[in-house]
């Protein structure tokens, strides 16, 4: 009972009097000979007063804090330069970190906007025996997986396509997705209007139905709620709208505008045609590995059942989140680390400023201590000041970040989903607030502690001289800054050099002054002969334009990201083993318009018709692989997609990079559009002046020939080429900005510490000058001090960079993560600029008023 009472008493009493009172009570209890009743009554009577005491303490702390804050604000207003410098520095660091955090949060931290159990969603690929682990799937394989697998609650397939919509306005070409009936339910997203396809609607050829995306519904159909049941014309065929999917669905990408049923009859196609993508939802309790094992077992059975088409084909499985954000995770984390490094440097700068100011305030603090302020009170007051600066910096940072996030949203085209929803929301604000508090602690606590320890009688007497210990602390801070800046600058320069290497890779085509526009000819209305006539007429119109050097159509274009992995086996007449190559279509004029070099033979011409000898043009890469040193022109090849047709090689053209510049050029085979029809081609027009006027001529020409056709994706070849290196450009730019800011802040830090050293030793230096010392040698000595700091910092930073660089490896092209030249450049720049940053304040020594400095004492 007494123990419980004591426990309660200890609980309610404020900490500073707890032990005293309990000890007092216990002593009296012992003296009285132990009446438990008395003890309990004492405790009971003390509970209310204990709370009174606690309230008092709270009120006192609040009053103290308010006083500190008032004092702090007065001080900050008085010391405007200090305040502005500190606030801006912190705003820069906090703002940048907040921006990058908003990106990381949006892309990496939030779950996908699908079902609540999105951790159970998987992406599934066919693993290609040629070492491409994430390949497309053949429809028959997919349906077999779905029927035989026990690991999935549901397994859905889809494939991208392009359609032309002719209802409700001008014809327009739209990206669309053909999907199985269970795609929406697999992802766990319900339509906002109507319904998704039913399994009955995918039977056979598939029913003529369509599901619209919210964006298309709003932009094209005015968002009318009665859209369900309406008939719209897609590729010349009327289809009934059964539902509208919300914008958040956006699957498989932000581009998808509408969805069509994926016809079951595709199952009867050859397993060699692989073009489906698949997602699955794991059954409860099944792990990713178990599901992968299950699918691989099925794939092995298919391998033995269909060796011709399936030999070597396996299965790759990854979580949908990994599949969607996998490629951008590393760059984002690198950027986050870079922004944090810059933030650290900013905090260090503010810390240095506060230390310097603390030195100047030594006398004030000593006076306050002398009139009874406790050390903890002084520390708290200093800390409140640091907090004030951080909060001001944080507020400015939020404004800067709001702008920065808007700029990122507008300019970033990282291949990551949901980026357009990037915004300054509660989570980002909370992060900014947290970063601000951490900044206050990092930048303020040490100077505050340092300053609160200062007061002493010697400070009262000694004026505002700094102690040498304080300079040592600032030097240590600057060395740290230099180290961090070195590491950051090494990373940024590595990326910049890698980008330079990447953009200097010849793409295999000439990107200047060339306009592109996609067109898709609906198969129901265009037979092979009418297709050729269409392209002939349209291209003839273009070629009559002034200044047009060449015009053609073809595709899918290199670096366009379209059908990136669709490859076929190519065999030559004297060898049976196939080489895999991208098969591309071209009309006469395509190679000239693209600026793809003709190496041998000829390009396609008007003489290559549907009924003439089947021909092909191959690129030098395929020529090398198929024919080695032999001359390919006049030889014959056969394509796995078009078996039984031997094509004569009429020409060899230069190699192009199909997927990206950082991979070697891949083999290509080109077919004349007249002999094997393609669904969609791209017009390529070289020259002709202003791209906008070329585009309008092209539009008019197409509309004259067929008013129901739409051009889409009008852009220049230069844009296309630049787009392929955009992620690298963005990473380099952002990291470069961070590194530059970090280096500048560091130089300011170097400047500051040297200025303080000069100011502090003004008396000693003045004395030496008065005694006839050479001013220049003293300046040199001071600069050398800075250089020693810089050397230590650069050495430490290089070490950090060497250790951390492998993290950058996957982001680099043509330059090693420990590239010595990069390191040498960074080290040279930092040492040289540190010397300059030190020289500027050190030069003041030459202008010291010797007598004045001596008179100070």
């Amino acid at each position, binding site marked *: 009972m007494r123990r419980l009472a004591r426990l309660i*008493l200890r609980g309610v009493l404020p900490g500073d*009097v707890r032990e*005293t*009172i309990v000890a*007092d*009570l216990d002593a009296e209890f012992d003296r009285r000979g132990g009446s438990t009743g008395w003890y309990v*009554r*004492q405790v009971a009577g003390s509970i*209310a*007063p204990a709370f009174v005491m606690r309230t008092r303490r709270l009120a006192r702390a609040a009053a103290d804090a308010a006083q500190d804050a008032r004092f702090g604000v007065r001080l900050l207003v008085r010391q405007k330069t200090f305040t502005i410098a500190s606030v801006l520095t912190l705003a820069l660091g906090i703002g940048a970190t907040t921006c990058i955090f908003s990106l990381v949060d949006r892309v990496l931290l939030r779950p996908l906007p699908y079902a609540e159990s999105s951790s159970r969603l998987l992406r599934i690929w066919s693993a290609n025996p040629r070492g491409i682990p994430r390949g497309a799937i053949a429809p028959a394989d997919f349906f077999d997986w779905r029927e035989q697998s026990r690991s999935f609650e549901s397994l859905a397939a889809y494939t991208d396509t392009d359609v032309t919509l002719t209802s409700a306005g001008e014809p327009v070409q739209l990206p669309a997705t053909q999907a199985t009936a269970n795609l929406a339910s697999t992802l766990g997203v319900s339509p906002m209007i109507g319904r998704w396809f039913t399994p009955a609607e995918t039977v056979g050829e598939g029913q003529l139905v369509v599901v619209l995306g919210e964006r298309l519904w709003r932009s094209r159909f005015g968002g009318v709620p009665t859209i369900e049941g309406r008939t719209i014309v897609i590729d010349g065929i009327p289809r009934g709208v059964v539902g509208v999917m919300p914008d958040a669905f956006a699957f498989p990408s932000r581009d998808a505008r509408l969805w069509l049923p994926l016809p079951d009859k595709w199952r009867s196609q050859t397993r060699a045609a692989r073009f489906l993508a698949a997602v699955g939802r794991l059954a409860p309790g099944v792990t990713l590995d178990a599901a992968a094992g299950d699918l691989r077992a099925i794939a092995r059975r298919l391998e033995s059942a269909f060796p011709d088409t399936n030999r070597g084909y396996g299965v790759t499985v990854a979580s949908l989140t990994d599949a969607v954000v996998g490629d951008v995770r590393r760059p984002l984390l690198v950027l986050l680390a870079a922004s944090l490094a810059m933030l650290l440097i900013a905090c260090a700068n503010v810390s240095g400023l506060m230390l310097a100011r603390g030195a100047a305030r030594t006398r004030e603090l000593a006076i306050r201590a002398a009139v009874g302020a406790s050390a903890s009170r002084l520390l708290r007051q200093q800390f409140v000041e640091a907090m004030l600066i951080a909060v001001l910096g944080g507020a400015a940072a939020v404004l800067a970040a709001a702008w920065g996030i808007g700029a990122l949203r507008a300019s970033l085209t990282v291949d990551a989903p949901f980026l357009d929803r990037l915004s300054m929301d509660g989570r980002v604000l909370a992060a900014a607030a947290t970063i601000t508090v951490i900044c206050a602690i990092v930048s303020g606590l040490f100077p505050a502690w340092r300053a609160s320890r200062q007061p002493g009688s010697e400070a009262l007497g000694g004026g505002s001289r700094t102690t040498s210990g304080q300079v040592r602390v600032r030097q240590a801070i600057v060395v740290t800054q230099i180290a961090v800046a070195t590491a950051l600058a090494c990373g940024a320069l590595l990326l910049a050099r890698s980008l330079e290497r990447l953009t200097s890779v010849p793409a295999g085509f000439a990107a200047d002054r060339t306009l592109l526009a996609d067109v898709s000819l609906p198969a129901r209305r265009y037979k092979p002969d009418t297709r050729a006539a269409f392209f002939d007429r349209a291209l003839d119109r273009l070629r009559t334009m002034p200044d047009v050097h060449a015009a053609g159509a073809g595709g899918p274009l290199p670096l366009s990201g379209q059908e990136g992995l669709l490859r076929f086996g190519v065999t030559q007449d004297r060898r049976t083993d196939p080489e895999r190559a991208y098969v591309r279509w071209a009309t006469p004029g395509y190679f000239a318009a693209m600026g793809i070099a003709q190496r041998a033979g000829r390009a396609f011409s008007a003489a290559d018709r549907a009924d003439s000898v089947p021909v092909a043009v191959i690129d030098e890469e395929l020529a090398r692989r198929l024919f080695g040193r032999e001359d390919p022109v006049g030889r014959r090849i056969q394509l796995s997609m078009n078996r039984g047709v031997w094509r004569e090689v009429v020409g060899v053209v230069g190699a192009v990079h199909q997927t990206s510049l950082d991979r070697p050029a891949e083999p290509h085979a080109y077919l004349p559009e007249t002999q094997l029809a393609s669904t969609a081609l791209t017009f390529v027009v070289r020259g002709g002046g202003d791209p906008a006027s070329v585009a309008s001529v092209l539009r008019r020409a197409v509309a004259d020939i067929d008013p129901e056709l739409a051009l889409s994706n009008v852009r220049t070849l230069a844009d296309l080429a630049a787009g392929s290196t955009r992620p690298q450009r963005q990473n380099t730019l952002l990291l470069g900005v961070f590194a530059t800011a970090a280096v500048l802040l560091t130089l300011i830090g170097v400047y500051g510490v040297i200025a303080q050293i000069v100011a502090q030793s003004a008396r000693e230096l003045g004395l030496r000058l008065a005694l006839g010392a050479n001013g220049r040698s003293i300046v040199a000595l001071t600069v050398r001090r800075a250089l020693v700091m810089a050397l230590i910092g650069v050495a430490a930073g290089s070490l950090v960079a060497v250790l951390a660089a492998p993290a950058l490896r996957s982001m680099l092209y043509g330059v090693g993560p420990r590239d010595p030249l990069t390191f040498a450049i960074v080290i040279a720049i930092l040492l040289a600029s540190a010397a300059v940053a030190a020289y500027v304040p050190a030069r003041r020594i030459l202008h010291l008023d010797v007598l004045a400095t001596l008179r100070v004492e």
Partner: protein
Amino acid sequence: MSPRGYLGDLEEIVLLAVVRCEPEAYGMRIRQEIEDQSGRSVAIGAVYAVLERLEDKHYIRRVEPPQGTNRDPRARRFFGITPAGKAAVEETAALRDRLWSGLRLRRGGKTS
């Protein structure tokens, strides 16, 4: 916290008890003194709360413990009255005297 410095009931009692106990005026001793004089039981917490208030008003202050007392952190806190405290007690007593003066109710000797 009377601005003029008049003391509350318990404040006056505790302040006077501090004076009576000096130089041995610490929490439990003061509590005992009040109990002895008034016959009514006071909780130790209440005494401390009032001591704190008086200290805030600068009527009492901490004093060095008498010789021979140990100094561990749980040690007793000893208090002594300040000149301001003396003035406040006198002021309060004077106020009572003024209020009482001329009243018939007054019975001899009971002024506290």
